[in-house]
């Protein structure tokens, strides 16, 4: 079972402001579930900045879900990004590592031009159980990280 979701928003800031803000999202009071944030690699390739970041987030599981995924454990998130200052695009690919057999999400966001539009594509792939299957999807989307920009 696969779910696909898109969303877009327009923010009244310059692209430069949003691009700079992308690196300074954390810590912030709206994302207390994000525990750590680190840059693992960074390089310039064809005048673009290619970065790899790892973040850890809390992963609150309701009691009924513990028998599927174990008790509350933090989850690791990988974010790959490419910033092109000429084209004014900031593209990220975010995925979780761990818990991939139960709930898997990957998102691609791109921020371009002066009217920043953020498109989020979420992909959730679950094992084929009946009711717990649908409830886990609901759980996954209710915890979807709203990207706090500024």
């Amino acid at each position, binding site marked *: 079972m696969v779910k696909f979701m898109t969303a877009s928003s327009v923010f009244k800031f310059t692209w430069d402001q949003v691009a700079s*803000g992308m690196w300074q999202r954390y810590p912030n009071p709206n994302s207390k579930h994000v525990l750590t944030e680190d840059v693992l*690699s960074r390089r310039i390739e064809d005048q673009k900045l290619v970065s790899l970041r*790892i973040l850890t987030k809390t992963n609150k599981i309701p009691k009924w879900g513990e028998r599927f995924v174990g008790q509350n454990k933090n989850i690791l998130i990988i974010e790959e990004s490419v910033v092109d*200052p000429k084209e004014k695009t900031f*593209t990220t690919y975010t995925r979780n590592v761990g818990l991939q057999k139960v709930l898997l999400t990957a998102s691609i966001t791109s921020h371009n031009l002066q009217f920043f539009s953020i498109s989020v594509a979420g992909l959730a792939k679950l094992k084929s159980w009946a009711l717990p299957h649908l409830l886990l999807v609901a759980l996954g989307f209710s915890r979807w990280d709203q990207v706090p920009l500024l």
Partner: protein
Amino acid sequence: MKYLSKRAASMDSVGTDCRELKRTYDECFNKWFSEKFLKGVTEDPCTALFKVYQDCVKKAIREKNLNLEEIETDVLGTEREKQPPPTT
């Protein structure tokens, strides 16, 4: 938007010992990114700071038995980007 001032709260690192290294590197990077890189200057003056910080983070990842190989695999820009993520 300018980069955050030194008085802003800093974010935790995956390695508790790496926090100050991270803060120092982030300050250098944020300044360079908004004042130079976005204006076309690609020479990065923060590489030495980054190396020290990166070594600390990699050590912490290994100590926590996280899968460094899976973490470092590039997906963006490859064929894997267009595929559903694997359930390994």
